[in-house]
């Protein structure tokens, strides 16, 4: 250890450094927080004031939020988002766990190739394959106008989730699995009784990411649900909300905050799983 004498010059340099760092931090915080503040302030303005350039509301009209909920369709969008995100997450997690387990713990020929293909799938822009997929769902299966073409494929493993889960399962020592097998567990029982309980943090992270992905998805609902407003999700409906309330920025901002809110609430309850997930994304370099 090196102990440095606390000369006055050093102390002053340290104080200046503290001030510089925290001034920058406050400036940065304004950049990140102010947009939320302006959106919130506008969301409670009266219709007339929202059309002006004023920043501070004269009266706080919280009833704008009630009006957003009364907009025809808004509650359906809410329901559809929950169905898409809920079922999509459930299907993804259930189908991705066994695949990730096999890729992490089984030794077999073609394992490297399989892993490369998983990564390639992750990198593929969804627009590349959407046209033939749409034709199948719309013309052969007659399921366009619903969210099923988005939900059903999630029962067949999602590349990103498989990749993240595999990274997590690699960290589980193989001895645990072997001792379970010595106790007479088959692979499936080992997976359900030993691996899944140990992998809970990884599974939670994958579930969260998938939930957010579905909740935020715009492209998918645009392709498959656009023709049928009854199948719209919040993320897709929000844009038409703006078009319908063309000048009512106050209502649009209230709706915008209502779309953001669930994600933020989930984040505050699940921060730990989140941090886990982010460090999983291959940052162990």
């Amino acid at each position: 250890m090196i102990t440095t004498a606390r000369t006055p010059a050093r102390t002053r340099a340290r104080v200046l450094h503290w001030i510089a760092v925290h001034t920058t931090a406050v400036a940065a915080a304004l950049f990140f927080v102010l947009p939320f503040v302006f959106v919130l302030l506008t969301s409670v303005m009266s219709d007339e004031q929202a059309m002006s350039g004023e920043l501070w509301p004269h009266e706080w009209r919280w009833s704008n939020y009630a009006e957003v909920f009364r907009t025809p369709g808004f509650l359906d969008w809410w329901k559809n988002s929950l169905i898409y995100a809920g079922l999509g997450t459930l299907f993804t997690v259930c189908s991705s766990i066994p695949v990730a387990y096999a890729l992490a713990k089984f030794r077999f020929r073609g394992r490297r190739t399989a892993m490369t293909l998983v990564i390639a799938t992750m990198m593929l822009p969804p627009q590349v394959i959407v046209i033939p997929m749409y034709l199948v769902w719309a013309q052969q299966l007659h399921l366009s106008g619903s969210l099923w073409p988005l939900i059903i494929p999630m029962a067949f493993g999602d590349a990103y989730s498989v990749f993240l889960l595999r990274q997590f399962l690699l960290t589980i020592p193989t001895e645990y699995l072997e001792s379970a097998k010595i106790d007479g567990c088959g692979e499936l029982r080992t997976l359900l009784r030993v691996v899944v309980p140990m992998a809970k943090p990884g599974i939670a992270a994958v579930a969260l990411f998938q939930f957010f992905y579905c909740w935020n998805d715009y492209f998918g609902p645009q392709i498959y649900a656009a023709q049928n407003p009854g199948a719209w999700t919040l993320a897709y409906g929000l844009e038409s909300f703006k078009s319908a309330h063309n000048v009512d920025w106050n209502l649009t901002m209230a709706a915008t905050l209502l779309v953001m809110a669930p994600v933020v609430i989930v984040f505050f309850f699940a921060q730990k799983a989140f941090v886990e997930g982010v460090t999983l994304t291959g940052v162990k370099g």
Partner: protein
Amino acid sequence: MAPLHPAPELRRKHRRARLRTLAFLSPWLVGFSVFFAYPLLATVYFSFMHYNQIQAPTFVGLRNWKYVLGQMPLFGPALWNTLWLVVVMVALRVVFGLGIGLLVTRIKSGVGFFRTAFYLPYLAPPVAATVAFVFLLNPGTGPVNEILSTIGISAPNWFNDPAWAKPSLVLLSLWGIGDLMVIFMAALLDVPKEQYEAAELDGAGAWSKFRYVTWPSITPIVMFAVVTGVVQTMQYYTQALVAGKLASGVSVGPGSVIQPGYPDHSTLTVPQLVYSLGFQNFNTGAACVLSLVLFAIAMAVTSLLMRKSAGLQTAED
């Protein structure tokens, strides 16, 4: 494991293991074939067909390819915009994310508050964030231009000006820097403290400490951020489409056709053009050609970058 097993039993065991592996992999094997391999092959097939999604497809040879690569007026602008975003957006996001990461690791008071404040915008759903930014930056009554004009700065028209529309999208992407902040923070905290102390003893200043201690140890993460950034930006769709639609001010009902790219094709990206060709013009062949061009560029860029990226290689094995 047990070398004394007789041969037939060993073979049976092998076969059982193979079946077991197949069973565990089956969801993905089905998913990969049906939702990846098939549509990719079908895209290649349709790229040689004339198909308007009503009459049966007819073979037209290379006509779609010649049309898209040689004659289609919007191919140039769309490709230019996508490449512009890939270069500018990814570069600025990496620099800004690293800056915010460095800042967070130096904050002594209130670090929890700052970290959450910097991270939250990343969580905002892209559509919601875009709607919010179109409002904040709208030239008529938007708060940003109100404030700028009060302090005497003549403000640009942001999403309504072809020259400013893409920079406005970059600004939106910098607001959502949370993902990069977190991974850079983790990487910066992983740099061994002793190395900084050693450098200080050698009399290194702030810049040389960054250049010779921090940078070498975080380059894998920087590469990782660049690769994932390029992959994401090649797919850039939602924000550009929503910003263009809303800024244009055209009221659109469901299913109505509005050409993406407002203003003046400045926000038209390749994925939007695929959508527009395939689902608005029903020119399936041209849309599939463009899909394959996008696929080829995405694969070329990522394999080039991945070869240099230690971050992804360690993740792979």
